[in-house]
């Protein structure tokens, strides 16, 4: 048992969990409003979209890559889907929109995957470029404007709830959206892929040492390609869910989210150089960012302080782990374990 405990303290997740817990307790003591049904449901519901993005971002960073194009990808696919269905006067259920989004997402993800996986170009630059292209297609070619109405099926999906939690003190109620189930199942599927398929182990292996992965018999190009396709699908799903939950499509308001998502994933202990990290940590890191963005108001800190906290969190969180790594390397004399560490 002692050995198990020792292993636990070496991992990152317990620390980030303690930080989340401390923040939650702080908010609870100051306001008495954190551990209330409606606040927890609010947080869960606010987790859905960032959570979906974070899962994809996590897998990409794990493989040693990075993706800054997912907000543009999600915006483009959700806009295109909504617009297409509106124009067609579609009145059916949520399945068709999901299907269309997923296929568009897969196609655009394949675009990223081709450049990164098959041509071996640097991921940051490629996704910067494709991000720009996706935006251009959406705003230029599709001439996007805000869509104030969405097809009834999507509307129904966005308003349907699993249950409603109410706060006896304030009388506020919050709905747990059905979309949370989608998020939970994506999380489960991703976990299973990462843990129990060789595609998933391949992502870890590539992040650890790409040349070795190739020699070991992983089809590294195809694995990376499929990874970006999968990530594109998840991002497009997140975009669609956001549209449904907001009951409208605003083409540009997801743009710029990439930085906070990446920050959450890295805060959760995922090494920016690839190879190490866990879904649990990634979710905890994202949760931390979501709580800071949503719940600080409960303790009387105005929302204008949000960025200050997120920024400080990123610097302190990454600073502490960077410093730990540096110290550990010194003490352990890891002289022959040199990985070419990409610097950006």
């Amino acid at each position, binding site marked *: 048992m002692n050995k198990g405990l020792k292993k636990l303290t070496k991992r990152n997740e317990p620390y980030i969990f303690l930080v989340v817990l401390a923040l939650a307790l702080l908010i609870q003591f100051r306001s008495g409003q954190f551990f209330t049904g409606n606040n927890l449901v609010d947080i869960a519901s606010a987790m859905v979209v960032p959570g979906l993005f974070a899962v994809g971002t996590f897998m990409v960073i794990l493989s040693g890559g*990075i993706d*800054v194009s997912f907000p543009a990808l999600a915006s483009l696919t959700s806009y295109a889907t909504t617009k297409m269905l509106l124009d067609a006067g579609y009145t059916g259920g949520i399945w068709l929109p999901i299907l269309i989004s997923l296929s568009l997402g897969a196609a655009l993800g394949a675009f990223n995957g081709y*450049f990164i996986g098959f*041509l*071996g*170009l*640097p991921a*940051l*630059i*490629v996704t*910067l*470029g*494709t*991000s*720009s*292209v*996706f*935006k*251009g*297609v*959406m*705003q*230029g*070619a599709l*001439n996007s404007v805000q869509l104030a109405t969405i097809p009834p099926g999507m509307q129904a999906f966005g308003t349907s709830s699993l249950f409603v939690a109410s706060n006896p003190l304030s009388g506020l109620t919050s709905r747990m959206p059905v979309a949370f189930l989608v998020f939970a199942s994506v999380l489960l599927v991703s976990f299973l892929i990462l843990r129990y398929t060789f595609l998933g182990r391949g992502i870890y292996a590539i992040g650890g040492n790409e*040349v070795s992965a*190739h*020699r070991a018999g992983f089809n*590294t*190009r195809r694995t990376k390609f499929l990874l970006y396709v999968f990530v594109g699908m998840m991002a497009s799903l997140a975009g669609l869910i956001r549209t449904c939950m907001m009951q409208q499509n605003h083409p540009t308001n997801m743009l*710029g989210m990439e*930085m*906070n998502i*990446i*920050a959450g994933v*890295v805060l959760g202990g995922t090494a*920016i*150089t690839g190879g190490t990290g866990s879904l649990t940590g990634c979710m905890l890191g994202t949760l931390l960012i979501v709580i800071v963005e949503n719940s600080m108001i409960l303790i009387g800190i105005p929302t*204008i*302080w*949000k*960025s*200050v*906290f*997120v*920024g*400080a*969190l*990123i*610097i302190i969180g*990454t*600073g502490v782990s*960077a*410093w730990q*790594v*540096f110290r550990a390397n010194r003490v352990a004399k890891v002289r022959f374990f040199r990985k070419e560490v*990409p*610097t*950006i």
Partner: protein
Amino acid sequence: MSGNVKASSLRGILAGRNAHIWRLVLVMVGWMAFMALTKYEKFYTLINFQTMASQFPEFGLMALGVMLCMITGGIDLSPVGVANLTAILMAFLLKALVGPEGGLPGYAIPLVFLLGALTGCLLGALNGLLVSKVRIPPILATLGMSELLAGVAIVLTNGNAVSKLPVDYALTINSRIGGLIPVQLVIFSVMAMLIWFLLSRTTYGTKIYLLGTNARAAQYSGLNNGRLLVKTYMLSGACAALGGLIMLANYNSARANYGGVYVLQCVLIVVLGGVSPTGGRGRISGVVLAIFLLRMLETGINRFPQISSYYISLIWGGVLLLVMVLDYLTNRGTRPGHGKSKAPGASAA
């Protein structure tokens, strides 16, 4: 795939040491020719070029800073945060300096530029310390700084624009020297020349190229990596701050969220300009060309009212991807380890 390419002379030039620069020149000349054929009267006017020259310095300066950081093997994602915070602080200062008749004292503008640049240096030094001493990967350190600085800017201004500035400031920066050359262009040129000089004529330049190539070997060669990094991020901060001061004049106001697209745009420019994202390689001429190219593309497209200006984003991303693929195609087989393990290279010999 054999790398046995029969090089025609044009191809020879395009694959040589200056290949990247030549490719950019080619794209630029092509675009200028296209504009000459289609919209000659509207594009080739003095006023159009003057306008362009007053617009690009704000992001051009930031891109110069990002370039320096990328040469050291890092990146700076905080230029917009630095620029906005500097602009806001200096806007407060300008409002405080304004005289009873609404005019500015003669020393005000030089003072604002001095203090602004110092602010930039200070914020950049923070980045540099986070990168070199705390050893946070640059992408994360500057990302966190960017968020933090934006946060401070929001808190200082409550998220609103700081406006109603003394008119003298905007008038001065927007004036043209000899009625011809925009002041913004002069500021940009001075910085660009300074950086060119630092990179090509001083030990600092050689040192940061080597540092970006192999930080470990740099340490083992007796270079002071920490100090070089701090210096570089300071310089980048100063560039961003000057960009912020130009934005302040161009918009005649300052706000926490101005220029949000510039962060990624700067990275794009720098990579398009031929700076290696892994460090150690890249020249200022390429980056300056890329800055011009972006401005000309955007302005040129605006001359076609039937085309949405949003297409610029599409073209821009497309050009970046195209250049990357061209690089990939020309380097395949000649540069080992660049692409896949399949590419045979010097390691095989």
